[in-house]
């Protein structure tokens, strides 16, 4: 039995008259690791900050642990949440250790041994002022600070954007360990699809302010296929209007189609229409992402 930790109900959000989120609805169950994908400006940060109450939705509701975020006040609920913002919010004059001590004072529970271990693994110099840390080191420190109180629900806004490949790998392993250790839920946005593939068990993809994809990673990869018709084969109107067809293009003389929900019925339909046996090609997550944005 899993609990719903986050509910988005038809959430709209815009800035200066420009709509960024155009009616997003979703639910997150405890223990899920969700990767949030989208191109630059798609609204990933807006979505995360709206979920956390930093921005208030223009319409719709966002609930964390069953409480609307705009009236979130209970300290015990707030302390179940961890957040790594896209731009770190460290105090430049403080060393990492001082900043961690400062943040720790807010929480009743603080796992300092965990942070010491992670600082060593991530190679974060804790006795250096934040102003003298590199961008990557600051990002690592931000991640540490967000994990110190061992939150149940962790939000990370492009946490690996400035990390080197080694640090990225270590960070992802840490995420996997955290999920394995306890019943934690993670929602993180990223541009690096391969990272998401390694960690996430569910994918959200935002495009044009809408949640275009909300599916388990395996299911998404299983059901999304690309089919290349033989040269000269015509694409009938039935296929063109098929609702699961997300992209159709012509490469040289062949028609290339991408379907979001491939099943036996569609296989038969295509076979009839093209007088041949279609050979569906399953796509990687990165390919799916690219196909959706063509």
């Amino acid at each position: 039995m899993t609990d719903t930790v986050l509910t988005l109900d038809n959430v709209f959000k815009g800035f200066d008259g420009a709509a960024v989120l155009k009616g997003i609805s979703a639910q997150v169950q405890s223990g899920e690791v969700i990767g949030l994908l989208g191109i630059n400006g798609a609204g990933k940060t807006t979505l995360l900050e709206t979920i956390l109450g930093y921005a208030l939705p223009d319409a719709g509701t966002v609930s964390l642990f069953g409480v609307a975020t705009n009236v979130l006040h209970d300290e015990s609920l707030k302390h179940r949440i961890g957040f790594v913002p896209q731009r770190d919010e460290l105090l430049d004059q403080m060393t990492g250790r001082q900043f961690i001590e400062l943040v720790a004072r807010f929480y009743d529970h603080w796992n300092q041994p965990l942070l010491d271990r992670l600082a060593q693994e991530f190679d974060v110099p804790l006795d250096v002022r934040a102003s003298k840390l590199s961008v990557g080191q600051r990002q690592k420190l931000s991640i540490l600070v967000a994990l110190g109180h061992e939150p149940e629900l962790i939000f990370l806004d492009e946490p690996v954007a400035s990390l080197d490949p080694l640090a990225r790998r270590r960070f992802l392993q840490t995420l996997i360990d955290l999920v394995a250790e306890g019943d934690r839920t993670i929602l993180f946005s990223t541009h690096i699809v391969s990272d998401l593939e390694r960690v996430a068990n569910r994918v959200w993809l935002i495009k044009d302010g809408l949640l275009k994809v909300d599916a388990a990673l395996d299911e998404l990869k299983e059901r999304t296929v690309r089919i290349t018709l033989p040269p000269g084969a015509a694409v009938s109107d039935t296929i063109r209007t098929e609702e699961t067809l997300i992209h159709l293009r012509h490469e040289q003389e062949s028609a290339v189609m991408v379907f979001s929900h491939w099943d036996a019925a569609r296989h038969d339909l295509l076979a009839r229409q093209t007088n041949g046996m279609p050979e569906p090609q399953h796509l990687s997550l990165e390919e799916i992402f690219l196909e959706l944005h063509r």
Partner: protein
Amino acid sequence: MTNRFGRTLAMLWFYLTWMPLMRYTAAIALLALAVTLLLGLAVDSVWYLGSMVASGIALGLPLMTCGAAFRQVVGNMRIALVPKAHWHAALGLLLLAAITVAWLLACYLLSGQLEHAAERTLDPLAFTLRSFLFVSSGMLLFQWLAQYRAGYYFWLVFPLYNVFAPVLHIDDHLRGNEPVWALLTVGLWAAFLFAMRRPARRRGLAGAMAGFSGGMACGWFEFGSITKAPGTLMRGVADSTANRLAYWLVFTLGMPLLVVALFTLAKLFRPEAFSVPQLVSVFLLMNLYMGAVIAASNCEWAIRTRLLWLRYPGTRADLWRYLETNILWFLVTMAVFSLLIATLIHLTIGFAPRLLVMYVVCGLILPALLTYTAITFRMWALPPLRQAVALIAVIGAVTATMVTALMYRDNSALLLAIAGAATLVAVLLRLRVAHRFRRIDWCAIRPIRFNRNGGLAGGFSWTTGI
């Protein structure tokens, strides 16, 4: 040799063209000097006051901003890689100081030749040396301040000297002894250039710059801490109580004294210039002005409450109450500070009590008005330039009205009217801002982020956010 000189000139050009702060400074200083020049055509009383204010701006503004520009330049790693870049940067600054003073002198002489030559006893050499010492030592001290806290307190010595030397007749010993002024100036520059011989990295200049970067409320100082976690996160380490004390000392005492010191330069033109009550009035006005500007810098606290949202118990309304408690404590402390100054002035020189009462009232109302005005601008995320222009307009309007009021003796009604209007506006703004705080999108209005090269230092970044 030519190449070295060329580099210095290039650095001077770089100061004036590349850095926005310096561009604005140069433009305002040139405008002030042009006003000085034009005022030569005016009647004597107008020329006298106007040219003092204009030249005060022309000298004082570069003095405040050049140090910050220097730190930004030498802290830029790409520039630091140029051989002896810090030398050329310092020499470029020296050249800038020399040009400023020479230009000012030229304006004075030219304006004097037009109308007032017969009435003045200007000694160009004395004026040049003293002005140059004034500007260059100010620039140098501002440069060192970022590294040494003691420098800020030491800096107070100079305006204090300028104000009290004539009273204590110290100047009498130096008058006619211009080489002493020249030696003092050269000595200061030599000491500074000697200090520059050490590589910037070893000297820790880059580190100091990172701390300096913020502007008045966010990073001028690197000492002290706020012991309570919510306060530290919201106000930042740089805004600790100890730092606030330093702000007060430097900006509400030091700056006004510096302006008064500038006015004492007028005595080189006319020994009977500026009576003590006039100088006290100038000091009080500047003190109010600086206090209000510092109060306005608290607008950043409102934005930094974002950092408390997921950590501090309570709703947005509770956060606003916490924020406002901090603001009100600050305003009350400022008012008490004004009361102490007023009492001290009354006890020592028996200054008009009515004006001192008005000063204390304004010491409470003006910072409140400017605080809520600045928070309003930040909360509505106005573009940086519009924020700066609007804030300067508000400050300018208030200052101009107060100057007008203080220049004439029977001004109680006018000052009361100003105080009443300012209170009303502050209360209205407070209501608007409190409502806005409950709906604000923190993702659209983030705390100012200071870059590691120093940002726009010099006290303006709290409003421009550049």
